[in-house]
């Protein structure tokens, strides 16, 4: 016992130092990221030139990193393992997709003044009521956050109130995203069926698929990532963050202390879903398409693997996981596309067995 009395102080100082280093590395990484669209403008023969592909793929990863933060907040801190966060991401994407579809206007193949092509094709006479308002960007953005938030509030309220936790909750969220996928595949849902939305023209007056649009979306995503990180850091660093950790480790004891753990979990789950929706809203204009495949259960699981690989329960870990796993995926799917799913599964097994605290756990080992 006396040995443990003496050792903790330097150990904690060690983690604090490691944390500081990580913070600086993170800041450097953000600055480096911010440079990418600038380097993209350099002449193509310049040594520092960065291709369009790198800019757009990195922009996509940034939105994935926001999704990873959202999952980490719920899973890593509050112990709520959602295997359906892809649904919140996709709903945010669909909301912005609806706005982008409305902006196409008469430039569609059928040239209808208000109805998107797929509606003309399916014989719609007028816009369904739930499409109203989406011609306004602020409304669409609001919906991109509110719809995932409301869905999370409903699912979370029913589950947490009935004290459904652990793997049962994970299965419910997995079923949720699967059900939504099947629903969105249906043509009569009014969301374009299995084709979804694509062929977008512009956003906020900027024609998409131009260097300007790429840079603008890139910076918007980066700003959203910083904002999301700030919000998560704020939550995690507050007493609420400590209540979340306590709920994760011993929920009944927290209840016994007089905390309404249902409300606490609902709060963090809804916040997490809203962040996932924001990520999806930034993702869709960058990739130029959204279809029901985004709801596929595999997507949600893949996002959970990012967080597991990076190190759940640390915000830096979520970022690290999202970037590193997606970098691996981009590389591997170009060299050996058939191997990717095996690699993903193997990665998850390996991390679970050998790196329970993820990459961050390896980096921090000297301090802990």
């Amino acid at each position, binding site marked *: *016992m006396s040995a*443990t*009395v003496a050792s*903790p*102080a330097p150990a*904690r100082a060690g983690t604090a130092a490691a944390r500081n280093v990580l913070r600086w590395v993170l800041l450097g990484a953000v600055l480096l990221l911010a440079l990418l669209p600038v380097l993209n403008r350099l002449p193509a023969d310049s040594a520092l030139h960065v291709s369009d592909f790198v800019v757009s793929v990195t922009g996509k990863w940034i939105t994935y990193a926001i999704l990873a933060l959202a999952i980490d907040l719920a899973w890593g801190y509050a112990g709520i393992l959602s295997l359906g966060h892809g649904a919140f991401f996709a709903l945010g994407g669909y909301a912005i997709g609806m706005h982008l579809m409305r902006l196409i206007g008469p430039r569609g193949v059928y040239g209808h003044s208000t109805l998107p092509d797929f509606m003309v094709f399916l014989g719609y006479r007028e816009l369904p009521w739930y499409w109203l308002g989406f011609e306004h960007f602020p409304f669409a953005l609001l919906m991109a956050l509110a719809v995932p938030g409301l869905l999370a509030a409903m699912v979370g309220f029913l589950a947490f109130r009935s004290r459904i936790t652990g793997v049962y909750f994970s299965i419910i969220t997995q079923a949720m995203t699967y059900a939504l996928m099947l629903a969105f595949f249906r043509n009569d849902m009014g969301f374009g069926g299995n084709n979804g939305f694509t062929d977008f023209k512009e956003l906020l007056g900027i024609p998409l698929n131009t260097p300007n649009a790429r840079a603008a979306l890139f910076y918007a995503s980066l700003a959203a990532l910083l904002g999301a990180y700030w919000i998560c850091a*704020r*939550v995690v660093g*507050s*007493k*609420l963050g*400590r*209540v979340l*950790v*306590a709920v*994760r*480790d*011993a929920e009944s*004891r*927290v209840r016994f*202390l*007089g*905390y*309404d753990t249902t*409300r*606490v979990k609902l*709060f*963090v789950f809804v916040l997490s879903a809203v962040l996932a929706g924001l990520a999806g809203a930034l993702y869709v204009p960058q990739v130029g398409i959204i279809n029901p495949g985004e709801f596929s259960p595999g997507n949600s699981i893949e996002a959970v693997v990012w967080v597991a690989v990076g190190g759940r329960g640390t915000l830096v870990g979520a970022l690290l996981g999202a970037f590193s796993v997606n970098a691996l995926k981009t590389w591997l799917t170009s060299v050996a596309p058939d191997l990717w799913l095996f690699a993903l599964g193997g990665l998850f097994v390996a991390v679970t067995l050998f790196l329970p605290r993820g990459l961050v756990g390896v980096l921090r080992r000297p301090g802990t």
Partner: protein
Amino acid sequence: MRAGSTLYLDGVSVVFDGFRALNNLSLVVEPGELRAVIGPNGAGKTTMMDVITGKTRPTAGDVRFGDRDLTRLDEAAIATLGIGRKFQKPTVFDALTVFENLELALKAPRGPVACLRWALSGEARRRIEAVLDETGLAPRAQDRAAILSHGQRQWLEIGMLLMQDPELLLVDEPVAGMTDQETEHTAALLRRIAGGRSVVVVEHDLEFVRALGRRVTVLHEGGVLSEGSIDHVQNDPRVVEVYLGR
């Protein structure tokens, strides 16, 4: 007549399927008193705690706390009245520091938004530091609870109960599995915290009860067998027969 008594049990019986877990039990604990309750397994010690905290309803009898009738209140209401219970198995939050564990237990608004906006005031800090001193955990305030010894975890749990400022503290077998030194420290701790509040300790360990050095109640088959100082009950022939004699 019972004015001033903190806890008052009179003629309490609890019957489970014909089995009398408590049989006409009467017990009065004065404000600031430290009382030890001993008895062989099945004597009704835990059932007594359950009745006081509202987990079990008495079949007959009176249970009062000050002037409140506890038989009409549920567990949460009884807890907010100021009765804290420490269970046998300590459950502290391993991932948090000792200080943070106490901070979570501190009386404060419990909603998510209130927790998000919570800032540690000087007053709150003083309350936490007072409990750190009281439990002797001050040197470990910034250590994670995971690395505490078994004894220290028990004290932290007692400290978390103290943060809620209870008038009556029920402590279930606090020294099970402790070293002699830790047992002594726990006895001193309980003596220290009684006075400001009443404390009822249920315990098997007679050495520990002797170290507490206060009034002892011996339970047997759901009722009070003997009551008095440790020397008194140890020399009571009925106690020797049913408890100590084995």
